[in-house]
């Protein structure tokens, strides 16, 4: 998965590149491996993408100035092989997801972006923008989130029928239309939330019209549950649900599963802080800050290599002494993928004199990879797919260890399992290879 955004200005006196830059910054947590922006002024398409974080890729002020025009799109990715936006000079595409089959033919991973770009280009020559998008998306078997811009002044937006990845629309009144995975982007550039892009919706924005066409397969939503637990920003509203409220409720649900006589609740920053607050609110056990970060905020779980992840964790988490010394601690984190991070945290807490460390995880057991992205690694790298809770307790050297139940997650989000994609927690996916 990735972070995607697009801006379409209705008058050509705007330069949108810097707005796209800040939009991407607001989505940095969705992928820090590559970043890219495309813009157009109806004369040319201007693209720049590179490995690195948004502020590294666009460190040079001149780079932003070369991205001319009043409409464009951008993408940050957690796949370091991604080279998005993909451009052929006429059309440039931001794509996130996974196409399994196209028009009945099996598509290999990494071929999907190019294929979708070529197909959009082909159809775009034959019909108008909305017709083009309809023809292409109809043939996709897979999940996708697409934002594309054309040299002739169209912005194309599409979201699959399951709506796995979120996408919403906003408006800077009379000036811009804005699209992004997360509503926080709208806040960051000063736009107002308008509506979610619906599941199965194709939408076109140009100077003359905002066209929408919804053709939904007969299916329930399959909103990514990882968005709620971990991926999305706290200040975003995803599919109409506040991420902050959801995470606070996860903390409450964890507390309801427990009966521990502890002295302090500590959430691991940043994601698990509201879990800790919710847990404390429910039990009355005081919540404290437990760690201070060194350096920039790095999402350690989605760094690609083990060493990078460990460096991330160690820099991120220097324990504060007083809330820990001699205390019975309830330590809450968002997920346990490989167990390395957690073992390290428990170890440092014990070094600082914690008497007991009870580890709670604000998500259900991760047992299966994400087949749509690199967000969750393959099965043999997942500790929970291999070990029981008792074994994990030993491995991380905790006094007790437990996960949030799937039912607890459903209650926290406010949606039942049949409306969510909980593939990483259950191994059941809404859509996979054709016929499987």
């Amino acid at each position, binding site marked *: 998965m990735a972070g995607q955004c697009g801006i379409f200005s*209705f008058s050509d006196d*705007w330069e949108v590149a810097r707005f796209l830059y800040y939009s991407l910054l607001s989505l940095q947590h969705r992928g820090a491996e590559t970043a890219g922006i495309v813009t157009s002024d109806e004369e040319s398409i201007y693209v720049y993408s590179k490995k690195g974080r948004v502020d590294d890729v666009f460190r040079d002020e001149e780079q932003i100035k070369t991205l001319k025009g009043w409409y464009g799109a951008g993408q940050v990715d957690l796949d370091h092989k991604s080279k998005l936006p993909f451009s052929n000079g006429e059309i440039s595409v931001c794509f996130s997801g996974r196409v399994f089959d196209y028009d009945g033919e099996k598509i290999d991973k990494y071929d999907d972006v190019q294929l979708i770009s070529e197909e959009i280009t082909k159809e775009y020559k034959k019909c108008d923008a909305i017709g083009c998008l309809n023809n292409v998306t109809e043939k996709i078997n897979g999940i996708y989130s697409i934002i594309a811009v054309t040299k002739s002044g169209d912005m194309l937006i599409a979201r699959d029928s399951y709506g796995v990845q979120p996408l919403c*629309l906003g408006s800077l009144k009379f000036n811009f239309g804005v699209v992004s995975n997360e509503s926080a982007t709208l806040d960051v550039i000063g736009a107002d939330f308008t509506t979610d892009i619906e599941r199965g919706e194709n939408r076109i924005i140009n100077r003359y019209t*905002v066209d929408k066409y919804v053709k939904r397969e007969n299916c329930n939503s399959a909103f990514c549950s990882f968005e709620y637990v971990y991926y999305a920003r706290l200040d975003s509203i995803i599919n109409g649900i506040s991420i902050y409220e959801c995470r606070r409720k996860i903390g409450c649900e964890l507390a309801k599963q427990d009966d521990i006589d502890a002295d302090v609740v500590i959430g691991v920053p940043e994601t698990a802080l509201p879990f800790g607050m919710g847990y404390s609110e429910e039990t009355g056990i005081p919540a404290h800050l437990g760690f201070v970060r060194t350096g920039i905020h790095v999402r350690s779980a989605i760094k690609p290599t083990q060493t990078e992840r460990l460096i991330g964790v160690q820099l991120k988490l220097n324990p504060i002494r007083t809330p820990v010394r001699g205390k019975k601690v309830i330590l809450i984190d968002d997920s346990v993928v490989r167990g390395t991070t957690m073992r390290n945290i428990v170890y440092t807490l014990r070094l600082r004199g914690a008497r007991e460390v009870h580890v709670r995880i604000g998500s259900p057991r991760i047992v299966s990879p994400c087949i749509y992205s690199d967000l969750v690694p393959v099965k043999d790298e997942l500790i929970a797919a291999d070990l029981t809770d008792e074994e994990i307790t030993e491995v991380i050297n905790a006094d007790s260890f437990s996960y949030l139940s799937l039912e607890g997650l459903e209650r926290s989000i406010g949606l039942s399992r049949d409306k969510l994609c909980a593939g990483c927690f259950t191994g059941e996916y809404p859509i996979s290879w054709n016929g499987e």
Partner: protein
Amino acid sequence: MKILTIGNGSREHSIVESLAISNIEPVIFNIGSLINPGILELCEKSGGKVVRSDPNDPKKVVEIAESISPDFAIIGPEEPQFHGVPDALLDAGIATVGATANCSMIERSKAWMRRLMFKYKIVGRLRFKSFTSVEEAIAYINAYAESIVLKPARQSGGKGVRVISDLQEYLKKEKRAVKEKHAKYLIEKHMKPYSDIDDKILIEEKVSGTEYTLQCFSDGHSVIPTPLVQDNKPAFDGDLGPETGGMGCCSYRDTLPFITKEEVDDSLKIIKQSVDAIQKETDEKYKGIIAGQMMLTSLWGPTLIEFYSRFGDPEGVNVLPIMKTDFVEVCEAIISEKLNKIKIEFEDQATVVKAIAPRGYPDYRDLAKGHPISVDLKLLEKYGVRPYYGSIDVVNGSWITGGSRSIELFAKRDTIEEANEATERCIPAAKLLDGHQLFHRSDIGSKERLLVEADKANLAREIYLYRKEHNLIGRKVDWIPLRGKIEYKG
């Protein structure tokens, strides 16, 4: 009885219709720059006719009027008022419903209007600055102006307004560039054709909140309100797209679901005080229609954004068709200054009006122009939806689109949602015969949209009521290094 109507849009179509259904059965005439098919049909049926002429030219209008010798005239749009058409008609001895050139300054000059509100200390006023030169305007923008509205100082068909919120320091450069470009455009291009006012552009403080329009009849003594209407200015669904004259409106009985009775009363008070002030300034009676385009803001509560010296378009099309009182009677009461003697009543219904425009409107009018259009009246009848024709010209019997909104569909029902559904079913009734496309806004009057507006209203209300309680209404306090505390009292 003979009545002359001026103007050829959807608003005038509904004015003519309201006159046509009067018990007095008047003979109706119309002067417009286009031959509006709806107005044409109604006028001819009444025994009158439609004359193609320049409705902004007082001499031509008086000439035609004298050949007709109507009992009274009614002016639809604002431009004829700005050009002194009502004054010329009155001079020729023809009673007229419609603000005179001087009274219509309330709409024509946005600077005059703002100064008036300050001079008479009318609540709901926004801080502003007016400029005549690009250099001064740009200097001001660079020194002070953050979140602002840039407007042409003269009403110019609702065009040229730019709203730029500028709260993010990191996006200042781009926003400042657009503010400068727009200020330059307004002064050097947009205002070029207008020499009838001194100010060129206005920079106003930007406020936010839900918007609504309160349209009133005035006879120089009484100001009588019509039901509250909400217009939607952005061209496309979801409040996206450039600013238009209005893509559709809804109303619900005498207010809107998200505006309180007290807020309606406060808004009416603002309009009444303004009419008094206009009359004091001009020494003329305000006889016609005055409308306040309002916003519920956290700063003031009901806040005046702009005045119309006529019915809004589409807003007028919401209220006239549900007026139970005979419109001719209302016009006569305005003329004879006896509005207080009649009771003006409206049906207890929700209304939705949706504008349909050819692709290209509002910014690329040449694209929108010149397409043959047809309307399936049977489909409209089936759902009890009425068409009000706008920018359509009858040329040799064919209907050809002008550059603006072609048609407005009107529905009344018990709820806004139902009225919205009825108009939505009738959208396919309008078709361009050459394959060019029409567009409209499907979200106006939808449940989701109403919830968004209600949320905006509640947010503003919570704050302005608190401010009111603490005597902070209309006040803004700032502290500037080396200068100290500064208080703006509006």
